[in-house]
């Protein structure tokens, strides 16, 4: 938070933030689809069908409802945290680059 404030109306920064947001929403959508498929899908909607299969000593639908879905949920948040760390870092580099270019052009072309 020690950096200069970002001007949210600068068009280049707006497009960088926009890219960041769209990648975030895309990632989120994928993870939420998995979330629904594991919890509400395998755990509830298809539980009766899945119970025809076995996982070790568990009927599969029952396992999803009482164990599997929870494990999937933990992994989903882990995946989101890790991927957002990377996305945040990329976004940070991008903003830095925009800022560097802006300060360079401010100092004039004699630099080069």
């Amino acid at each position: 938070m020690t950096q200069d404030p970002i001007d949210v109306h600068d068009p280049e920064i707006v497009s960088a933030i926009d890219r960041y947001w769209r990648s975030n929403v895309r990632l989120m959508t994928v993870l939420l689809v998995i979330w629904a498929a594991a919890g509400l899908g395998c755990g509830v909607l298809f539980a009766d069908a899945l119970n025809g299969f076995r996982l070790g000593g568990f009927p599969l639908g029952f396992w999803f409802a009482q164990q599997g879905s929870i494990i999937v949920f933990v992994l989903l948040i882990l995946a989101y945290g890790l991927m957002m760390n990377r996305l945040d870092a990329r976004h940070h580099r991008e903003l830095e680059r925009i800022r560097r270019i802006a300060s360079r052009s401010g100092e004039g072309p004699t630099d080069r």
Partner: protein
Amino acid sequence: MSLKLWTLSFVAASFGFYLLIAWLSRVRDTSGFYVAGRGIPAAANGMATAADWMSAASFISMAGLISTMGYAGGMYLMGWTGGYVLLALLLAPYLRKFGHYTVPDFVGDRYESNVARLIAVVCAIFVSFTYVAGQMRGVGIVFSRFLEVDITVGVLIGMAIVFVYATLGGMKGITWTQVVQYWVLITAFLIPAIAISFKLTGNPVPQLAMGGRLLEDGLPLLERLDGLHSELGFASYTEPFVGRWDKLNVFCVTLSLMVGTAGLPHVIVRFYTVKSVRAARWSAFWALLFISALYLTAPATAAFARYYMIQSLQGRTEAQLPAWFRSWRQTGLILWLDDGDGRLEYYGGSNPAPARQNEIFRSGNLGSAERAAVEVDHQRWLDSSGVQGADGRQVLSAKGLSGPDRDIIVLATPEMASLADWIIALVAAGALAAALSTASGLLLVISSSVAHDLYYRVINPSASEGQRLAVGRMVIGLAVVVAGLLGVFPPGFVSQVVAFAFGLAAASFFPAIVLGIFSKRVGTAPAMIGMVAGIGFTASYIIGSVYAGMPDWCFGIGPQGIGVVGMLINFGLSLGLTPLFPAPSQKVRDMVESIREPEGAGPALVIESAPEH
């Protein structure tokens, strides 16, 4: 040392520890009081969130609930964990970036309306009081069961402890106490689970052992349990959608609990206490990881204890009954009313042979005098071959008290696994930790809703830091007293209103916050109409169904799952009306822009570093 002495020393030691932490983390400013100075590391916040989340009900009742419901119990497991995915992905990082103190803060600022703020305040207070009443009652029940004191005395002791550490340390004191409480409660939960798992299957990992084979006869546990259930007339343990719970209702309850979890204010505010947006995401991960330690174990304990209970009771005579049965019989959690043949028989609803009747009951809400009267009448009925007295089995099953109390599954498991007295004492300390940690988190939400949202943001915006802190402390003190009173004189509806709390959170906060973050277009009027309609529908449906005996006219969805419909109404109305109303101001659109972006800057940061904060 006797069990009582062990329990007393464990409880006293843990309480002393909580007070010490409160003293060490006492606070002097509102930021410390409401959001712990935003200095809590992600993993510690995860533990605190987990302790906050896992209430007396999760600790004492949930395994028992699963044990009687079988597959359908999974809706609580999925519902109360799946909500964290929604929190981590849809809410926590953005609310942290927004950087205020409370949930009504966000609703009020995003929709630029004090009316919206007030609606949110009322919901937050209602949801929190509903919840906290149950916790205080839980404290009283644990005290009365383990230390044989009156429930009222137990509630008073719990009140005193929470009062001291919540007023002294605010969110900071509560958070660090919850970190300790997490370890107390999870240790107390895991040891008996591992012990009974090892005893029955020889495998110390309950989650694996649940799918394993029994040492006794080499058969798979779950298959054996299904067999016993069909033999004795209970619904199948692993087969879904048998009996009362059809697919639609399991689906709606699961989704309603998930969305409700993500909308509960005492869970959301935890994410304001961490250092950064990134830490908010990680603390959601840690929270669910720590929660899953209990939630993955509870269904295993449920299955083991269910099997063991049936095995060690069915067909036994008085002399053959295990010791745990005798000690819990005294508390009324399990009762045996024999038909005269001297053998205990435990049967479910679909009676296998009409001549046999279930003989296992619980005393439920009956007082000790009423219970004794039923037992005396039953004995007279037996002695006189039905001429005098009354068949206690008919009396109790007419009152809906067939089968043991579900709490016995967790409470008696240490004795079933023949563990030492000090572990049973640890379970008492764990149950108290679970109840107190949840109660304190809820009390803070009540305090911040009144002192911050109502007093500072609406009534007296020029209040000084000192005044605000004093009001915050006063309100939390008052809230402890009200919660205690609700615990001593529980309103009859407490058990049903937990569904209410989740339904309301799902139908009000969740859509309002999600739309506030993911749409820049939804304005004040559509959001408020959506919220009021969602709450109105959900509240009237639950009240109508629970009190007025209204049939479940909405596709047969019961009151527990109706929050989903309320949420859809809220989303539908808000989005449908949006094109007809003006868009929010540029200031709000900038704010939304800034909370979507983790790098600082934008109006949210300006607000956070402004002098009055």
